[in-house]
């Protein structure tokens, strides 16, 4: 049985003048210890997915329908008291900006001990011992010293290591990491990514990695969801998606990278921009920017369907595949 099973998750935002749908019937599964990437540009709904999984959506956002089964519990129905037990304890979250999570007026040690004692019956001394172990696990220099320091005394890379140590504190089953390395420099990012991968593998922790960076997804995850305008447009094995993207948006995203073109040549850009939530075009939301779009695409919303080893929501891909099947049948 999978650890996490999301079915038809729909999230809406009730604005004063209208209600907009930020997530449209998102469905995916995550096995125990599996690493899943959620890729998309800003406005795709990837961060909202992360918050919805933690039931941390703040007004005016709310879960409209769908279920989130986490190890037998439906998170959408769970009362707040139960959620508090799940958060931190079973599912931990890592954000882009460590200062969101760290309290600037408490030392690292105080924060780690508090977190531990809130969930476990532990003496202060034992809690401190666990905190130290976790800090050693994230390979931070001079862990004893860090316990006594305040967040502002640490560098960005060190803070992100501490955040990861805090996420691991209660041995969660799942870590949701929202752009965990985006604010870091490449040399530090590489270290943090390596660390995250190692820790997830060693502790059998599941990982949902939310990012815009295909390189990061490629190196850390086994499976990937590509999101566009609040929908999953492609889902499958990370390798397959990177090497053989099916959906025109995924293809466009990969082809637009400077590495894909000879230096000095024009990049293969996708025209236009992601639609805003209040103005989603009819039919396939990508159709106005898609080179393959036909009249059907502008009218009918494509359903996500199994195509080879990936799931894709695209009329054009469906057509190609059915043509292929016809030919094979002949």
């Amino acid at each position, binding site marked *: 049985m999978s650890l996490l099973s999301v079915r038809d998750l729909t999230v809406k935002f009730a604005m004063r*003048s209208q209600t907009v749908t930020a997530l449209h019937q998102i469905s995916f599964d995550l096995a125990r210890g599996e690493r899943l990437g959620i890729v998309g540009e800003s406005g795709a709904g990837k961060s909202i997915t992360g918050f919805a999984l933690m039931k941390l959506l703040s007004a005016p956002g709310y879960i409209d329908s769908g279920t989130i089964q986490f190890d037998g519990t439906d998170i959408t129905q769970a009362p707040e008291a139960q959620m508090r037990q799940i958060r931190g304890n079973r599912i931990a979250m890592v954000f882009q900006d460590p200062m969101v999570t760290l309290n600037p007026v408490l030392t690292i040690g105080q924060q780690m001990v508090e977190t531990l004692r809130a969930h476990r019956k532990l003496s202060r001394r034992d809690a401190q011992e666990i905190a130290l172990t976790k800090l050693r696990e994230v390979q931070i220099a001079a862990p004893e010293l860090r316990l006594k320091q305040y967040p502002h005394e640490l560098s960005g890379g060190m803070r992100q290591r501490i955040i990861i140590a805090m996420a691991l504190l209660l041995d969660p089953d799942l870590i949701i990491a929202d752009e965990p390395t985006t604010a870091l420099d490449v040399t530090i990012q590489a270290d943090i990514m390596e660390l995250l991968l190692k820790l997830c593998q060693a502790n059998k922790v599941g990982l949902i990695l939310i990012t815009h960076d295909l390189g990061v997804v490629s190196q850390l995850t086994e499976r990937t969801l590509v999101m566009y305008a609040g929908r999953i447009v492609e889902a499958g094995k990370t390798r397959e998606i990177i090497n053989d993207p099916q959906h025109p948006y995924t293809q466009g995203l990969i082809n637009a990278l400077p590495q894909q073109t000879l230096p000095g040549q024009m990049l293969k850009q996708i025209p236009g921009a992601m639609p805003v939530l209040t103005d989603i075009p009819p039919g396939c939301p990508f159709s106005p920017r898609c080179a393959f779009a036909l009249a059907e695409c502008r009218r009918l919303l494509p359903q996500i369907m199994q195509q080879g080893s990936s799931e894709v929501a695209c009329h054009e891909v469906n057509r190609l595949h059915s043509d292929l099947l016809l030919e094979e049948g002949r």
Partner: protein
Amino acid sequence: MSNLLITPPPSRWARFWASPLGDSLRGNPVALVALLVFSVIVVLALLAPVIAPFDPYDPTQIDIMNSDLPPFWIPGAEPQFVLGSDDQGRDMWSAILYGTRLSLMIGLAAVALQATLGIAIGLAAGYLGGRVDSLLMRLADIQLSFSTLMLAIVVLAVTHAMWGAAVFDRYAVVAVIAVIGLAEWPQYARTLRATVLAERQKEYVDSARVLGFGPLRIMLRHILPNAMSPIFVISTVQVGNAIIAEASLSFLGLGLPASQPSLGALIASGFDYIFAGSWWITALPGGVLVVLVLVINLLGDWLRDALNPRLYKV
């Protein structure tokens, strides 16, 4: 995204109503009622010469025989004097209308003076920085340590000593505006300086500098329009404060004389008669003053929330 609909341009009011500001007003009944009450008071005050049955400035219309008449709901009232009359026989309703007009006028003019001084000084201090900033801000500190009252006493003493009370009474309105305007400009200067310091960091200011624009152009054309929200907010609060300041000064005899009935002067003129039974001479203008300042402050509160950049875009 860019669907341009060709529609006739909506009226100014309709545009305001549809804007985020109008939207927040619709969601805030308290502010809406305050705006309504404020508008009614302003309209009545502006139309005072038309509505008022008597002209309180005209001595020929005042008859001492009509003095101390109670308002209409109290036995002994005269139908002519709806809200009664004061100790000299002035019609209270007319006096309040004219008084409100005068108080509002003084409040707005004093705030205009404060704003002009404060904006110029705050803008220069924030943008130029360094020594100019230090000098101007110390000046503001010194100004703030003189209270409005102290400044008023000094001005009154000096003018009385130099030209006598009669001349002062003639120019009392100007003097009160000047006193309140001078005393409170640091409020503007400080707020604006803080805003300018924040705006100056933004890239659009760098962009203007790279384009070679001069400091005056950058300050007035680029930074000032982006620093207007806090100015609007303080302005409403300051109008309320200025009206109270005027009333206080007039009550203490440092402001307008009894012959020019501002709300404060009216309250002062009735003060001696409160316990002699004619409480309305003080209570009615006092009530108007309280309501006027209250609605202005409520509007200020709403404006502060509505223009808060964090809440603005939701």
